[in-house]
Each structure stands twice: as structure tokens, then as C-alpha cells.
């Protein structure tokens, strides 16, 4: 039994890790070495040349894509927090039917596939004159984060005792001041969870930047620039592996440090419903 368990776990770990190993090792090898021995490490001939080429590709500069994607993630997180935290406070403290209906409305968004939304959203964005613009993209991307944010924040604020609000009111604070000075600082753990989930979401999102920003615009996120860079050279492994490695390197670092937050965020998001 014990041996069986060890074998099973080892096998699972190998299946999970080998693609990652290939991704890292082959990014430092030439085409010949990759073709002749994809699993080997030719210590004498490892090179940074292809990684450099991927980073400094004149058409789809990955360095620029890092900056663009990071700024997008930052903007989406700020917008999402600004919209959902006050709304969640009102809903969590509200007792009327309309508050519950509003929450239901937000949570409905969890079940609507984004492919269903994207065609009509193009229509709306064209109507507003925001199609193909950063503003339009950020608005839509932020909207997609709202259901999860609302869900996490409402659940979290409900665990904060109402006596806090009353004490603040006694001291003469209005609802806005109470929210800003008392509730928001206490929401830090929930905000951290939401930020981690949304950052991964924006970083790995491909469909929305590809369609809304469009290949015509010169703005590439990491995923769309990797797609554009690899698309034409998918048999040239010295393009494929380095590009993929550079695309995932930042999130993997993020993952190693924040693994616990990601896992607990996912669990909270999925099980408290």
C-alpha cells in the first residue's frame, strides 16, 4: 500500500513536472540540440542567445509587453477595488430585499461564459466609441472581475462586527468616513486575495486583449505578443521555448511567493457559495 502510494505520487509529480522541465531546459538550447535530444542538457553549448532574441524581438518586444500587462493588471485591480469595495459594504450592511437582489445580480456574472459576452460587448464598445481602445479594454476586463470581488468582499465584511460601525457613528463619522477609515483597512486580507486572483486573471487572459485591443493596434500583452511571435514560427523551437519561458517566468516567481494566497483565494471563492 505504502509502496503503491509512493509510486503513484512520484508518477503524478513526473507527469506534471516534465513539461515544465522541457520548457526551462530547451529555452537555453539551439535548434539542433533540441531536436537531437530534447531532454538532455548540453552543458558546453547552453546559450542565452535565443532568450535575448525573444526579449528584444523588434516586432513584439516582451519587455514592453511586461510593462503593458503589469499596468493593465494594476489598473484593473484599482478600478475593481474602487467599484466593488464600497458596493460590497452597502450590500453587506443592507438588510432590504433590494440589497440581496443586487448581490444576486453580481453573482450571476460568475456563470456567464465570456465567449457569450464578447460579441455583444464589441457592439456596445463600438457604440460607445471605445472599441480597440485601452479604456474599453480596461472597463470590460474590470467588469469581469467584479463578481469574484463582490463575492469575496461581501462575505468578508459580514464577518466584521456591526458594533464597529455603531462606534464610528457615535464618534460622529458618516457612512463614507466609516467605510474609508474603519472598514476598508480591515478588509486587507480579502483585498489581497482578490488582487492575487485578478492579477493572474489579467496576466493569463488572451481572448479579450486579442479581440478588443486587436492585432491591428500596437499594444500587445504578454499572451497576445507570444501568440503573435510564435504563430509564424511554430516549428522553430528556438523561438517557441524562449518565448514561452519568458512569458511564464514572472508569474512563476509570483506563484512561488504567493502560493498560499492563491490557493486560499481559490478555495474561498469556490466553497463559500
Amino acid at each position, binding site marked *: 500500500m505504502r509502496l503503491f502510494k509512493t509510486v*503513484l*505520487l512520484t508518477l*503524478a*509529480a513526473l*507527469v*506534471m513536472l516534465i513539461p515544465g522541465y*522541457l*520548457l526551462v531546459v*530547451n529555452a537555453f538550447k539551439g535548434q539542433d540540440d533540441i*531536436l537531437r*535530444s*530534447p*531532454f538532455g542538457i548540453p552543458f558546453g553549448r547552453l546559450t542565452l542567445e535565443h532568450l535575448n532574441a525573444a526579449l528584444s524581438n523588434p516586432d513584439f518586444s516582451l519587455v514592453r509587453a511586461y510593462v503593458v500587462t503589469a499596468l493593465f493588471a494594476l489598473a484593473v485591480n484599482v478600478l475593481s477595488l474602487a*467599484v466593488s469595495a464600497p458596493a460590497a459594504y452597502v450590500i453587506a450592511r443592507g438588510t432590504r430585499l433590494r440589497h440581496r437582489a443586487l448581490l444576486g*445580480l*453580481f453573482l*450571476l*456574472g460568475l*456563470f*456567464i*461564459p465570456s*465567449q*457569450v*459576452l*464578447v*460579441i*455583444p*460587448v464589441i*457592439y*456596445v464598445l*463600438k457604440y460607445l466609441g471605445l472599441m480597440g481602445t485601452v479604456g474599453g479594454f480596461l*472597463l470590460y476586463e*474590470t*467588469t*469581469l472581475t*467584479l463578481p469574484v470581488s463582490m463575492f469575496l468582499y461581501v462575505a468578508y465584511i459580514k464577518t466584521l462586527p456591526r458594533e464597529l460601525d455603531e462606534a464610528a457613528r457615535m464618534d460622529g463619522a458618516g457612512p463614507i468616513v466609516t467605510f474609508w477609515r474603519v472598514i476598508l483597512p480591515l478588509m486587507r486580507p480579502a483585498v489581497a486575495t482578490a488582487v492575487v486572483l485578478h492579477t*493572474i486573471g489579467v*496576466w*493569463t487572459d*488572451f*481572448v479579450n486583449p486579442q479581440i478588443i485591443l486587436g492585432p491591428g493596434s500596437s499594444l500587445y500583452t504578454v*499572451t497576445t505578443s*507570444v*501568440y503573435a511571435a510564435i504563430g509564424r514560427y*511554430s*516549428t522553430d*523551437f528556438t523561438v*517557441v521555448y524562449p518565448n*514561452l519561458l519568458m*512569458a*511564464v517566468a514572472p*508569474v512563476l516567481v*509570483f*506563484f512561488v511567493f504567493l*502560493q498560499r494566497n*492563491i*490557493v486560499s483565494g*481559490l*478555495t474561498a471563492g469556490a*466553497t463559500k457559495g
Partner: protein
Amino acid sequence: MITLFMLVPIALAGYLSFTDWDGLTPNPQGVGWANYSRLLHDADVGHAAVVTLIVTVVGTIACNAAGLGLALLLNRTSRLTAVLRAVVFYPYVIGPIIIGFLWSAILGANGAIAHLLGNAGHSPLPFLSDPAWAVGSIVAVVVWSQFGVNVVLYLAGLQTVPASLHEAAHIDGAGRWQTFRSVTWPLLAPSVTVNLVLVLVGLLRVYEIVLALTGGGPAGRTNTFAFLILSESFRSNHLGYGAAQAITLMVVIAALALGLTALRRRAEDAVSS
């Protein structure tokens, strides 16, 4: 924002699905039920529905079986299990588009697996070039990339099973399998529901992995429903028709998610009563 980018779009998708909108003209013409009747007789749609069905059914079962199995093996706190949990979970932060490219480099004609087979004196297997093999490859890669989330969620579910119950079962002379069958499994019922519904809803919209792994090929034989909506409707500018497909997908997802939840509720009630 929810109203602008979720509710209005859904209503609009309903409206656009009755028009011939091409994504460019501001005033689409109504075409009645033409899009829907075309959908019923469209061989591509029928094929995509079959592929989606295979991916969803096999994938949902495999993700949950592997997820629960591994969660049972990892259900104790030690450094090793924490590392293994991270190992099965890391594809989540890499994102589907990168995973698709990575696996296409591994499974493709000159990829790592073909190399291994060659060394063993075997001719390469048509992982991505034969329609049946390609669907199998998609299922395998989807399961590889998603079941880590199920492991994490099942582990959280297992934490809620009180250790005292296991001890009681042990004292009563129950074996491992018996304990699992009559203590763990019934108490996991809510976890199972969450996992089933999440995987089901996720797999019905598989898009990026198909795009990067097979591009829908060979000859459109691995188009999933979501892939058809996004690729075909944009390539040919039949967005009205795409909207009809999107609405169909949304109805199917909603029906399956609600149906599954209702079915599972009976299993959950059996425990609490």
C-alpha cells in the same frame, strides 16, 4: 458596469442572434430565426458539439477522479505534501494559451515525445495530426492543466471531515475502503458538487488550449463549440450567427449547471437528513 457589460450584452446577444450583423455596419438587418435554423443544419456546429461533449464528459470525470484521488493521498500536512500540491497546481498560473503552445511543442511532429518514440525504435504517433488522436490529446492536456485546482478544492473539502469520525470508524473495525465509503464520501458531497459544476462549466468553454495546440485542426476536426464561436464568427464576420451560437452555448451551460446542482442536492440532502 455589470449592467453595461453583462446584462445589456446578454440582451443584445439575444437581439443580434436574430440579425445578420457583420461586425462593421451599424444597423444590422433582422433575419428572424434563420441563424438558429442554420445552426441546426450546420455540420460544423454538430461536429463541434460532439467534440465539446467528449472533452467535457471525459474531462470532467478524469479531473474529478484524479483530483479526489490525489487529494486523498496528499491529505496531511507535511513539507512534502505542500510541495506536491504546488507541483500539481502550477499550470493554473501559466494560463491556457501558453500551456497549449508548450504541449504542441512536446506532442508535435518533431517534439519531445516523437523523439522518445524514435529512440525506442517506434514510429511517431499522430498526436495532433490524426483527428481522433488530436481530440484525445486535447482532453489529456486540459486535464493536465486543470485537475490541480480540483486537488486543492478537494483538500479543502477533506479538512472539513472531522478526524474524530475517522477514529470512531477505525475503532468500530472499519477498513480504509469502508471508512472512505461510509464516512468520507458522504461528507464530501458538497465538495463534489462544487468540483463537478466548476469543471463542467470550465470545460464547455475550452478555447485557448485548442487554439494553441491544434488550431482546430486537422481540418477543423477538433473545433470545440467555444472555438467555433470565436474563430469562425470573426474570420468570416458572421457575428449575428456567432451570437446565435453563443446564446445556444449559454443555455446549454445554464441547463447543465442547474441540472447537475439539482441532482447533487439530493446526494447532499441524503447526508444531512
